[in-house]
């Protein structure tokens, strides 16, 4: 069973303990990642998408803590790992690239120095071999004049180049999983296209699985094998890109899709989602989205909606979809 998936996240709860109380950033997230697949996690700020990624890597801020749940990597629960084991896991089994390539590289070390660090730590290559490996990685991610770049400092490179270096660093030890946390948000569209293309190319070449965390529905539409939509620290919906975009089963997903301008340029008026984002200090008892949902029912206020299964592993956590399916089942029974 565990062979089928490289990473399984089971009922993950992560909270931050702040002065004003417990902020429940992730409230029971469950998903599976198959080897060599691209999983997209999409949501607005505060939906818990980045915290989910950080929980997997265990790089939460000091106030943050995984409260309960499991993260299984090849069947092993990594939430039980000690610090040393985690150091072995990061970089070698699972790497992360961050949103901002300007601040995630160390300004006082050369590119080469930073690239070699991971290689020296995780493999038994000597310095010379590590240097060669680093040059090879830079070539792979399409950095021109890699030997010259090795001796340069981050400020000498452009944003797109820095993000390439980040990717090279993350992939230097050939991890099985690459987590990309908003990898192109800070970049311009033409550079974004370059980086996305590069990630897809590398994925084909090296065969790692990718978790793509983003708020941009455009980015995930073309790239991902599977998409999770998050709101208020919970998974609203899971399915393929087509499931999410064309057969969406959750009111929040539908709302998101209605609030972005259409690609065909029709000047149709946007339909925004009313209200303001949820306060994680004070989560509602029922569905996290119920306060902003047009179709909210009584039950939405009091009980967390169940996962409603639809064809091909597509599911949505919504009472409305649940009710619809129940009605259809009833009609089916009556007809029989």
């Amino acid at each position, binding site marked *: 069973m565990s062979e089928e998936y490289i990473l399984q996240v089971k009922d993950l709860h992560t909270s931050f303990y702040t002065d004003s109380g417990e902020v429940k950033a992730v409230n029971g997230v469950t998903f599976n990642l198959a080897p060599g697949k691209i999983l997209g996690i999409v949501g*607005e*700020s505060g939906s818990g998408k980045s915290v989910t990624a950080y929980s997997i890597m265990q790089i939460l801020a000091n106030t943050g803590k995984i409260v309960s749940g499991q993260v299984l990597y090849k069947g092993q629960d990594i939430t039980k790992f000690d610090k040393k084991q985690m150091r072995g896991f990061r970089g070698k089994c699972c790497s992360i690239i961050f949103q901002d390539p300007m601040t995630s590289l160390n300004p006082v070390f050369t590119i080469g120095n930073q690239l070699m660090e991971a290689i020296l730590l995780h493999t038994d290559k000597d310095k010379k071999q590590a240097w060669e490996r680093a040059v090879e990685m830079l070539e792979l991610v399409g950095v021109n004049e890699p030997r010259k770049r090795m001796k340069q400092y981050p400020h000498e490179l*452009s944003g*797109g*180049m820095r993000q390439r270096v980040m990717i090279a660093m993350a992939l230097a030890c050939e991890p099985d999983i690459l987590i990309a946390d908003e990898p192109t948000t800070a970049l*311009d*569209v*033409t*550079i*974004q*296209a*370059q980086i*996305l*293309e590069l990630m897809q190319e590398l994925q084909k070449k090296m065969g790692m699985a990718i978790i793509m965390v983003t*708020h*941009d*529905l*455009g*980015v995930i*539409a*073309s790239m991902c094998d599977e998409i999770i939509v998050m709101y208020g620290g919970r998974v609203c919906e899971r399915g393929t*890109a*087509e499931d999410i*975009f*064309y057969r969406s089963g959750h009111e929040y997903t539908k*709302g*998101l*899709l*209605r*609030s*972005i*301008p*259409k*690609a065909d*340029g029709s*000047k149709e*008026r*946007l*339909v*925004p*989602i*009313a209200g*303001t*984002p949820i306060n994680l200090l004070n989560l509602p008892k029922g569905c996290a989205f119920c306060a*902003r949902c047009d179709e909210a029912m009584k039950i939405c206020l009091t009980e967390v909606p169940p996962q409603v299964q639809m064809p091909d592993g597509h599911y949505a956590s919504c009472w409305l979809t649940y009710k619809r399916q129940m009605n259809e089942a009833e009609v089916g029974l009556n007809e029989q």
Partner: protein
Amino acid sequence: MSSEYLIEVEDLKQYFPVKTGFFKTTPLKAVDGVSFSIKAGETLGLVGESGCGKTTVGRSILRLYEPTGGFVKYNGEEITAANIQEYRKHMQMVFQDPYSSLNPRMTVEDIIGEPLDVHRLYNSKQERREKILSLMELVGLNAEHATRYAHEFSGGQRQRIGIARALAVDPKFIVCDEAVSALDVSIQAQVINMFEDLQQKLGVAYLFIAHDLLVVRHISNRIAVMYLGRVVEIGDADEVYENPMHPYTQSLLSAVPIPDPVTAKKSKRIVLSGDVPSPMNMPAGCAFCTRCRYAEERCAQECPSLTDRGNGHQVACFREG
């Protein structure tokens, strides 16, 4: 005396001196000869990548910077440093970041009231307060919150405060500098709709600066595309999106991630190689020639000017069609 256009920008130049040696300064040509015009009640979208000078254009129009060359006309009359105070009653700006563009020590009432104070647009305290409350209502803020401070509001609400402040003087033209970029999509849609409603109600014209090309297409009547301080293409929004003629516009539009899996998988990206050259060291000819697929010898030497290709669709490129 009043002209067809509300705002006319002619050959606007904005250079910033950058120290490149002990005694040497080199001009950084942020905006290098930009011309366009905006009709009353119209929205002109200004797109381009970071560093192309789109924000500088917006700021130079309002004379937040003193332009190096060229001029801006409002209703046919030239704006100069001497009369800008007067014209700021007609032209306002909404900034990108709703967190840093509001003074944290002022209440909402004072933030929105400040332009009223500056231009002395009221006769009594009572009138000032009434004006502020009606402005808050106009942008969908709860009037009871007038005595609160900016930090007590969410991002979308703060952007509404910024918009109310811009509207306080009853302007005819607003520069929206990335006004929705910092907002989440669901909130972004609320603010975009509000911009559209306000335009209908008050007849304001916008210069809508943004890097999100789908949003710009949605809101704009016409669009100008900038690259390294120059406008490379300008025209009707749909015309530019459906039939982009400049190679830069073509690749820029093809790079837009499309939020629709079927179209996205079908569409072909024209991926540009390389990065934008430094504006300190611009190519002598067409600024885009270092990354252009079609670049010829001529492109590196001469700079193409905007030429009309029909229906006001202007392109700065030597290549025909």
